[in-house]
């Protein structure tokens, strides 16, 4: 078994995520190779930008590799678009399917506030979450996104921006965060550390 696979699907810049994992003592491997994912002990799917970029995961056989690895119980963490990919899809790119780990579609914010939602916003945390252990309600994390998942029964952290949405989900070994833990100071590092410690 190899280590932590950080899946590179040409969706922006992975440097910050990798750097944060290094800082916490991990040795992540950035990869677009399904075989590496299939051997990984943990899988991280970062992502900034457009949901359509996740099409690359299907084209390269990465979707299948991630799905089957996740089914084997390996911890999976989706970040930002990576969280959105865990659902059935997003109205941002209706022709591209998500992983379908969780039911529902991600949709654009419908609010009188500015979109994208950029900046530090607070969390309401569910206490039984392993991912959010040590994070308190009222703690702040950094977001930058225009699409979001509505509340789900696996939602473990909620943020309000013109209405509540899913800031973090956890369904067994399947986890996701809409915020950027790699850019969210100590709170974000706590979340990443929790994932590494699983």
């Amino acid at each position, binding site marked *: 078994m190899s280590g932590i696979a950080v899946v590179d699907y040409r*969706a*922006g*810049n992975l*440097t*910050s995520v990798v*750097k*944060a994992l290094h*800082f916490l003592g991990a040795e992540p491997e950035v990869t677009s190779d399904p075989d590496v994912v299939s051997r990984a002990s943990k899988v991280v799917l970062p992502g*900034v*930008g*457009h949901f359509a970029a996740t099409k690359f995961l299907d084209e390269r056989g990465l979707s299948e590799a991630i799905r089957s690895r996740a089914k084997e119980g390996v911890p999976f963490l989706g970040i930002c678009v990576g969280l959105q990919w865990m659902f059935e899809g997003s109205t941002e790119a209706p022709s591209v399917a998500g992983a379908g780990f969780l039911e529902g579609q991600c949709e654009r914010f419908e609010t009188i*506030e*500015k*979109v*994208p*939602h*950029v*900046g*530090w*916003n*607070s969390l309401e945390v569910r206490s039984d979450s392993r991912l959010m252990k040590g994070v308190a309600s009222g703690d*702040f994390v*950094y977001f*930058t*996104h225009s699409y979001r998942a509505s509340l789900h029964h696996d939602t473990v952290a909620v943020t*309000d*921006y013109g209405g509540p949405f899913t800031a973090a989900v956890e369904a067994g070994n399947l986890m996701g965060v809409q915020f*950027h833990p*790699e*850019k*969210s*100071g*100590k709170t*974000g*590092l706590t979340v990443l550390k929790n994932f590494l410690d699983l």
Partner: protein
Amino acid sequence: MLTKRIIACLDVKDGRVVKGIQFVDLIDAGDPAALAVAHAEAGADEIVLLDITATHEERGTLIETVKRASRGLFVPFTVGGGIRTLDDASAVFDGGADKISVNSAAVARPELIDEIGRCFGAQAVIVAIDGRRSSSGTGDASDPVRDAEVFIGGGRNPTGRRVIDWAREAEDRGAGELLLTSMDSDGTRNGFDCELTAAVSEAVAIPVIASGGAGNAGHFVEVFGRGKADAALAASIFHFGISSARELKVELASRGIPMRLPC
């Protein structure tokens, strides 16, 4: 609640901080990497590093600085100055920046915004606009704020373009945020240009970062309220009695501005 952001800005030349915020207890107070980390630890919500280095050779120094700074930085980190091509942007992202800021080069070739946005996502592109209120025309039709003009080349060269028009085009091309510097206010310590900031903020749906003119905490209260800014850049204010972003944020929070605290 989404908070207003206080962004610490460092101007760097030849690898040294030339303007911005000094920390007396740092061993090397001119080292941008050390200062960036110090500001994050002192409560800044983001760090912006603007490189005003002139020559190509010295760009290598910048990338090294970005790498060193980003290693210990876990808040959003923006790098600007001299980014003219997608390759320039890529090098800075590879070094560990989360966002880049483009100014003159985007005015000269607006497609640069689209190109970087397509590759790295709109959230990674900040378009910096240096604007000055219009003084031409005295007729009733003239509005010095709405007709404010874009300047490039560090504020030296007028472009004939209206700030509001350029802000809208930048948004349409996929900019994630705008960094608006008022040339009328910059360096005055008399407060931000709230009218210009509000005019731009109302013209676009993306966040607007206000810059130029901060002299005290009250100026931040004004620009977040009347100025409708989503974030504000703090540079020299820390020379004048406010010791850190944390102290500024505590003061602003006590005056009703939503802030990330504790930080």
